[in-house]
């Protein structure tokens, strides 16, 4: 068991190293200029319109993903392969009489009669507009993969229970059950309370496993082209769920504590009200930022360590950077679980404060 785990970890780490090498080399060859660590890292960390797997003979092998744009004239869809891997705004795609270019993973709609992007001093295009972009980006794609995996794991676990007549878990269910019980006994019951926790269990379990699996997918090489849980849009969405659930489950007592804090003098009540209202919004905001920053920071650190080889242009740095990224990688394996746990605990805590009975 231990040996196998160790092997799995080593495999994981070295394949990350190799895939990142490939990535870095590609940047170097394609653009035929100085290796830019920041560009490489940002390209990795940010969302993209195609799923880049590996480079083969200087030809990027990618999974084309659908692009869905909502322009003034309505819906426009085409595959991302139409851009031919161009990200510098040169390749123009014409569709329904509208012309689009992709520049730094953003899709611009060129103004009528313009053939190329023009930029201002800050490298912002001046003659194009950003249509509403509902594309299935690599993060959306990866998210759906993770959803499929989650559904597969948990629906088959649920089946195992149905099969056994005495509710004894077997197979994958016996692996998942301790986690489910952990969320129930260590998160939901202490934070929300014995009587009300049942209602929130599905949300807490879903959010925990959804974050965790996306965190893990972010660490797995090849799949780690997508950085789903390190994307602020993703974390914001989950935090919004917590926020909305907190608002809707808030009882009279909760609102009283926000708008008219009991037990303090009137001037204090007036003083506390805006603070409490701000606090209400800071909670989901901090959830968003914490998860996003932790996961992104992890990715940035690993990639930076790998980039050292290309920055120093010396193969002697390679053992050092591989060693360090191995170290960080092992820490990250722990961190991704802890971050999923913390998101869940804090969500439960916020829900718990919203539903707490007045007991003073």
């Amino acid at each position, binding site marked *: 068991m231990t040996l196998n785990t160790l092997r799995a970890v080593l495999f994981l780490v070295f394949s990350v190293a190799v895939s990142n090498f490939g990535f870095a080399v590609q940047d170097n060859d394609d653009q035929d200029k100085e290796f830019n660590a920041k560009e490489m890292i940002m390209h990795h960390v940010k969302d993209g319109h195609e799923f880049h797997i590996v480079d083969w003979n200087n030809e990027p092998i990618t999974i084309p993903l659908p692009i869905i744009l909502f322009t003034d004239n309505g819906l426009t869809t085409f595959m991302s392969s139409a851009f031919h891997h161009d990200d510098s705004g040169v390749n123009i795609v014409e569709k329904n009489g509208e012309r689009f270019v992709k520049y730094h993973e953003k899709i611009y709609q060129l103004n009528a009669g313009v053939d190329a992007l023009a930029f201002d001093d800050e490298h912002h295009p001046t003659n194009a507009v950003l249509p509403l972009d509902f594309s299935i980006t690599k993060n959306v794609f990866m998210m759906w993969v993770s959803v499929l995996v989650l559904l597969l794991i948990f629906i088959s676990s649920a089946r195992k229970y149905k099969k056994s007549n005495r509710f004894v878990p077997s197979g994958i269910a016996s692996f998942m059950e301790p986690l489910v019980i952990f969320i129930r006994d*260590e998160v939901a019951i202490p934070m929300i309370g014995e009587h009300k926790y049942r209602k929130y269990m599905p949300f807490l379990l879903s959010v925990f496993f959804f974050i965790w699996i996306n965190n893990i997918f972010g660490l797995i090489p090849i799949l780690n082209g997508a950085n789903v849980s390190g994307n602020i849009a993703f974390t914001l969405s989950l935090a919004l769920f917590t926020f909305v659930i907190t608002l809707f489950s808030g009882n009279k007592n909760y609102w009283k504590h926000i708008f008219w804090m009991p037990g303090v003098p009137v001037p204090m009540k007036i003083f506390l009200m805006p603070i409490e209202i701000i606090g209400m919004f800071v909670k989901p905001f901090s959830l968003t930022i*914490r998860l996003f*920053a*932790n996961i992104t920071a992890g990715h940035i650190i690993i990639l930076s360590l790998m980039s050292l080889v290309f920055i120093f242009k010396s193969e002697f740095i390679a053992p050092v950077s591989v060693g360090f990224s191995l170290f960080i990688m092992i820490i990250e394996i722990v961190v991704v679980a*802890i971050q999923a746990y913390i998101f869940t*605990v*804090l969500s439960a805590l916020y829900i718990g404060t919203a539903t707490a009975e007045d007991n003073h």
Partner: protein
Amino acid sequence: MTITGIAAIGAGIAVIGAGMGIGKIGESAMNAMARQPEIQGKLQTSALILAAFVEAVALFGVVASLIV
């Protein structure tokens, strides 16, 4: 010095503060666990949550440096 450099220094200072804060939490949690090993689980949970709160403050600093 560019604005990016200043932002980086700011992020660094934020990290120092958070590091000290998390260090204090860890120290106290360890002390408490040594004194009362029977409530270790509870202490661990609270320590993690508190560390998460402190860390959030540092992350605000990091995010602020990312904005500029």
